[in-house]
């Protein structure tokens, strides 16, 4: 699968299309454009998107930036699909403020990706 970078952010940023379902329900919502972000420990999903699938909450966490500012958040369990591949029981942090899906390393470390920067294309191998 090949996906063109998003130019909505400058410089352009690698993205993938993801779909979400509550665990084991196989009722998919999306696709949502997800920013590929290897700097994020976990995947982050706007609460508005989670509201559509109503996944179970699994734990409270602390979200922190590299400058150590912190805020409370909750992890929700979802099934996540990218292309033809489904990842069950993925923990994602609910984001009450933004409208961006951030694809963090808890998902990226399960993918074989190639970032073809000069052509602004992401290859899912």
């Amino acid at each position, binding site marked *: 699968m090949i996906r063109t970078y998003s130019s909505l952010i400058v410089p352009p940023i690698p993205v993938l299309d993801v779909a979400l379902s509550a*665990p084991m329900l196989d009722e998919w919502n999306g696709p949502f454009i997800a920013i590929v972000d290897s700097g994020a420990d976990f995947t982050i999903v706007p609460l508005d998107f989670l509201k559509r699938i109503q996944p179970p909450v699994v734990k409270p966490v602390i979200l*922190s930036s590299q400058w150590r500012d912190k805020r409370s958040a909750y992890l929700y369990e979802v099934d996540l699909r990218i292309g033809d591949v489904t990842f069950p029981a993925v923990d994602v942090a609910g984001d009450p403020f933004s409208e961006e899906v951030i694809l963090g390393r808890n998902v990226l470390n399960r993918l074989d990706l190639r970032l073809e920067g000069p052509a602004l294309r992401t290859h899912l191998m």
Partner: protein
Amino acid sequence: MIQVSLSEHTIGKLRQMAERKGTDISELLDRAIERYLADEPSIPDQGWGVERDGQIAQIEREQQAYETQHKQILEAYAGQYIAMRHGKVVDHDLDRIVIGKRVRTKFGNEPVLITPVLDEARQTIVVRSPRLLENMA
């Protein structure tokens, strides 16, 4: 992000509490307010909001039980995932997907705390991706 005014007295107590817990005032306040709101009666007619408030109140209670028992749980299950329901460990496994499937099969979407057993009782997720804002006033 919004700003709120607090008395010097409250700020002083918050600062002391934050130092004792090894955190900062913003995070401490955020957590305290979330817990307070989770225990308050929900506003009706908000659909998932009401259900989510109930789930969050329950998961905060499970988290408090987990933090209270953290030392013993760390000794018994370090490096594994545990599932905690009504203050008791009801399942454990090395694999997040496997424990997730068992918990959902047994308890549906009920709020069951599922967490890796780590040195820190409340996991910190770091996002190291600052954005460049061109038009900052």
